[in-house]
């Protein structure tokens, strides 16, 4: 039987046929055009790189934020590394009529005193591809390295991708207490009979130390447009919910508390007056003998915008992306033994949080359509995560495990 195949091989393998001259002329013409295209692509790559470098700088300076949300920008304006402290108790014990004026004056001179926090998130995600198949699996085994070399297995030049995913997150953060004129309206401080500065500081730090992240999850969709074999832009829409707990001596959660990201309750600039007034009334009461646990449930809408570089080789896919993200606080609820406080979502929607993000990605194809990805993400907020805060969230570290589907068009 084998002689049959062998005879065919002998007859066919060493045969030669001269092509017409036209073939080479067409090849030479195509190569000349391609060289021009390559130069044009290089130019576009340089422009994209320049945008990547300058975009975060422009955003970081706050100008971009100011253009789109001027009012919000002013509310968030802060003086970096500048902290003030007052021992003037009279400021805190003014009558209700005077408090408004006093606070307004303080706000004008001392907006926020903390540095914007940094966050690091480490995602591990499995994704399953649907839709148009990318042609990198149909390779001959013995020729796989060879075919990979000339990139026949690469995805096509331009394409859309739609992804949806769910991620479970565990957050870890640390807080550093830095006293300022406007101290945080942490609930424990409210109920203390001893209103001395030293006792307040001690109690605030204790509450901060008791703040625990319990669980977070995030779900959403993202759109990606690949405009070059290695470059893409992407955006998306994500909903995130964080659940945390806080121990306090207070009998009730601090009223109208607002905050960003994963932070303990804090009075907003707008409701500080009301809060202070209620604190004064509360000071008349006796502190509880036992600590109680409060639960915080915050939800956010996140819209990222990224530009990324991605490369594939054999079964590996790796890349880097840079961009920005707008985070809208939708709700921020605190509950303790049946009582709860819901923050007005409309008020908080104005408080959009902006951050710059950079992301690394490493993927491995474990099946014809299944990828396992690891994505470390580094985020830097443009503005402090809390308004009028007397403490700093030093950093936030999250670990996430997720699953997703990806549709290729």
């Amino acid at each position, binding site marked *: 039987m084998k002689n049959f*195949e062998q005879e*065919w091989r002998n007859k066919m393998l060493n045969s030669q046929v001269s092509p017409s001259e036209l073939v*080479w002329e067409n090849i030479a013409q195509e190569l000349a055009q391609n060289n021009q295209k390559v130069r044009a692509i290089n130019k576009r790559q340089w422009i994209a790189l320049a945008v990547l470098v300058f975009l975060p700088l422009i955003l970081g300076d706050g100008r971009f934020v100011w253009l789109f949300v001027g009012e919000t920008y002013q509310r968030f304006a802060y003086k970096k590394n500048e902290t003030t402290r007052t021992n003037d108790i009279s400021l805190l014990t003014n009558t209700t009529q005077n408090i408004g004026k006093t606070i307004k004056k303080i706000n004008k001179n001392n907006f926020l005193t903390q540095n914007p926090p940094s966050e690091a998130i480490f995602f591990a995600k499995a994704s399953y591809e649907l839709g148009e198949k990318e042609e990198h699996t149909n390779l001959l085994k013995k020729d796989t390295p060879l075919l990979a*070399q000339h990139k026949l297995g690469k995805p096509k030049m331009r394409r859309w991708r739609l992804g949806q995913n769910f991620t479970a997150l565990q957050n870890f953060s640390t807080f550093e207490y830095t006293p300022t004129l406007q101290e945080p309206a942490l609930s424990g401080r409210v109920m203390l009979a001893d209103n001395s500065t030293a006792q307040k500081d001690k109690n605030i730090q204790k509450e901060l130390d008791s703040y625990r992240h319990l669980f977070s999850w995030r779900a959403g969709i993202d759109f990606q447009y690949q405009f070059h074999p290695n470059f893409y832009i992407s955006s998306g829409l994500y909903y995130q919910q964080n659940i945390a707990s806080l121990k306090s001596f207070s009998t009730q959660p601090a009223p109208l508390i607002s905050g960003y990201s994963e932070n303990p309750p804090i009075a907003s600039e707008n409701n500080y007056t009301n809060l202070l007034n209620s604190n004064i009334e509360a000071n008349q009461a006796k502190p509880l003998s036992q600590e109680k646990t409060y639960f915080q449930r915050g939800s956010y809408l996140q819209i990222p915008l990224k530009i990324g570089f991605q490369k594939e080789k054999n079964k590996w896919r790796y890349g880097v992306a840079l961009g920005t993200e707008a985070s809208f606080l939708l709700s921020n609820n605190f509950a303790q033994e049946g009582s709860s406080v819901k923050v007005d979502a409309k008020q908080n929607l104005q408080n959009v949080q902006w951050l710059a993000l950079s992301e690394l990605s490493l993927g491995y194809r474990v099946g014809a359509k299944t990828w396992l990805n690891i994505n470390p993400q580094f985020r830097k907020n443009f503005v402090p995560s809390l308004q009028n805060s007397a403490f700093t969230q030093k950093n936030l570290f999250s670990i996430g495990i997720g699953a997703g589907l990806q549709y290729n068009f």
Partner: protein
Amino acid sequence: MCIDEKTLIEACQKQSPKAQRQLYERFAPKMLAVALRYTNGRLEAEDVLQEGFIKIFKHINNFRGESSLEHWIKTIIIHTALKQNRSKLYLFPALDVEDLPESYHESTELLSALHYEDLLKMIQELAPRYRVVFNLYAIEGYQHQEIANMLDISEGTSKSQYARAKQILRERIEQESIKKMVLLDNNKTIR
């Protein structure tokens, strides 16, 4: 002037038009013969050759010399030909290899008497699905499992397609041999 392969590759990587031309001239005749086996005729084969060599020149920077240059080029030409015929290849019917007759006597002797042009014509006249599997298995020497992976079909389908192609070719070889013998007899009678 004939330069060695390594120098030629390096010059092509620097996109030297002269070197590109030289590399093309060195391998194009062999590669056209390959492309002819995977296509219906010369026009289509020259299209494959053109597209294949453009890919080769675009990606020659990725050639690391882990195999011979000729093998690398041939792989690209084959893949280009397959890509061009992909729509036709997806129409594979699932035939059962056991149903096909295996009673043909060896036609190897008849085969050796035929010329390259006759055999090429026979291959080109095969349906694309038979032609591709026959080329990959009988001539290039790939295993059915590899062909199945390459064409996104089952191993059984690859085997059945090959068996059917082989059956058709044997019939054609016999017919062609008979024709030749008749022609030979006629010539003798005329003399």
